């Protein structure tokens, strides 16, 4: 259990900058999500912390001690690989005990700690199975137990739930969070699944083209994205560009949006927008108003999504609302979209 610091780390592959002066810190016991599209450098960063990738520049330290020149096997890390990489020749117990065996831990202690781990990941009684006799979710838990049994300073997870189907993935998310909380180990995980990142992480970093775009608690990054990329990568976003004048943004068509900030680009999350039939009066606090026409209604029972054309150039905006009225507005309906200035977020382009 340790604090991990990554300072100004860069890594090039030929002409490609996989990591471009990345600086991040990971607090003791924190569950940290590295989120980004494929090829963004998030996996390279994880592998640099593990020791498989040697940074060209910069420093990586565990509890203040530099580790760039420490080989993987002496870094005291635990890692869960995307394909789990369980040892096919060993049974579940053998897999979990591996890290203890190479350290020369006594057989008696090994047995105690393996038992403890099997309980933690709820696989008691399956110790004698071979990996190939387990389901995907069980293999995942063995991989987790194997990584945790050595009490690593840092636990690294590479797309840990990527190989599981949707239902199992949601179950494992809850379990993973629980196991992490119980063991208290600093955990860094890589994912391209935004929902997974939001659900599991204490903090997340959005990474793009080898750079950190934004770091923060999920609620901060989601509600206050700092760039258009961050806004679009983490969830859906409606983007408005216009002319900035004090506390407002003037759109091309003359509409005026109240928007705190200084940027000439703002984003609004679809679920923050309410749709009213033309003629209805929105509540006073939803003072940003745009007239529009419904292009498409997507009814999914509990919620309704609308695609709405607005402005002279038919800019399309997306809204997403809980189905409170029990009424569906059909394509062609003239509507007013209303939302609060507080949810009108200035972002860098």
């Amino acid at each position, binding site marked *: 259990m340790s604090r991990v610091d990554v300072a100004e780390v860069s890594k090039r592959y030929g002409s490609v900058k996989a990591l471009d002066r990345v600086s991040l810190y990971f607090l003791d016991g924190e569950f940290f999500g590295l989120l980004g599209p494929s090829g963004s450098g998030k996996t390279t960063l994880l592998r640099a912390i*593990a*020791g*498989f990738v040697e940074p060209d520049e910069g420093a990586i330290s565990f509890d203040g001690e530099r580790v760039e020149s420490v*080989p*993987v*096997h*002496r*870094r*005291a*890390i*635990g*890692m869960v*690989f995307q*394909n789990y*990489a*369980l*040892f*096919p*020749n*060993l049974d579940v117990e053998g897999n979990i005990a*591996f*890290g203890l*065996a*190479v*350290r020369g831990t006594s057989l008696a202690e090994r047995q105690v700690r393996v038992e403890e781990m099997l309980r933690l990941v709820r696989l008691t009684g399956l110790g004698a199975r071979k990996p*190939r006799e387990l389901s995907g979710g069980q293999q995942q838990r063995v991989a987790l137990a*194997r*990584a945790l049994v*050595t009490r690593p300073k840092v636990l*690294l997870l590479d797309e840990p739930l990527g190989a599981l189907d949707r239902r199992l993935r949601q179950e494992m998310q809850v379990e993973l969070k629980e196991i992490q909380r119980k063991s208290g180990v600093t955990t860094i995980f890589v994912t391209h699944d935004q929902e997974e990142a939001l659900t599991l992480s204490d903090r997340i970093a959005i990474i793009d083209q080898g750079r950190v775009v934004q770091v923060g608690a999920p609620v901060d990054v989601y509600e206050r994205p700092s760039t258009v990329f961050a806004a679009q990568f983490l969830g859906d976003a409606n983007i408005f560009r216009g002319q900035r004048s004090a506390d407002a943004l003037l759109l091309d068509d003359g509409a005026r949006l109240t928007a705190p900030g200084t940027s000439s680009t703002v984003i609004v999350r679809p679920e923050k927008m309410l749709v009213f039939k033309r003629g209805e009066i929105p509540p006073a606090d939803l003072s940003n108003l745009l007239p529009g026409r419904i292009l498409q209604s997507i009814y999914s029972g509990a919620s309704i999504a609308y695609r709405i054309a607005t402005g002279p150039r038919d800019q399309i905006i997306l809204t997403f609302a809980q189905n409170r009225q029990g009424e569906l507005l059909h394509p062609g309906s003239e509507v007013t979209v209303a939302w609060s200035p507080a949810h009108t977020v200035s972002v860098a382009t």
Partner: protein
Amino acid sequence: MATSLAHWLTRTYLAVILLFLYLPIAVMILMAFNASPLYEFPFEFDLIWFKALLKNEKLMTAGFNSIGIALANTVVATVLGTLGSLGLNRYEFRGRQLLEILLLPPITIPWLIIGTSMLIFFFWTGIGRGLHSILLGHVALSIPYVMIVVGSRLKTHGASLEEAAATLGANPWQAFWRVTLPALSPSIVAAALFAFAVSFDQFVISYFLAPPGTSTLPVEIYTSIRKGFTPEINAISTVIILVSMGLMLLVARQYRFGGER
């Protein structure tokens, strides 16, 4: 109707194939136990040809030569080939791909040509002919097979097992002995069998590199057939077939070559 006809056809086809493969072998084994040297019926069970074989010093010496060379070849080629395969698959270096491509020609070039070139080369370098040069030739011939068999396994499980071992605190030496080698063992055993077979079956190269007075089993069998066939050949062939099939079955059971059950 159509399905049962197709069913019947495929069954017959399989039966015919198996018959073609095994009938000659079965006849040979049967004749090894027949008293008549001229394949006469009625069949009369006798072990005289096995007794004669034990007294046939040339055939016995050649047999032991063959077994010795095949065993030595298996050990040397399997060890070198496995190490080479690890090098090709786990390290990046200049010319790696070229080396990997260069593995294939020795398998496709006719043995006659390889044998001739080896004969010329060994003569020219002064290595000469003899059991030692036969062994050298067999090792050179077997290594590509070993590297391809072991390499395909190394490629499928990638480097992730070794990486996992490293994250768990295993140094490279421990990772090799505890993870890489056990994970490779089925393919290493298969490769060893290949190496043994390549050597034990090898006729052309052995024939070229054997000096007068020395020979291996295939060469000796060929020579004695030219002089006039005796059922002792049936006897020794029977021994070889039974031993090699037994070995195959044992290994196949151990390593589930037929896939996971």
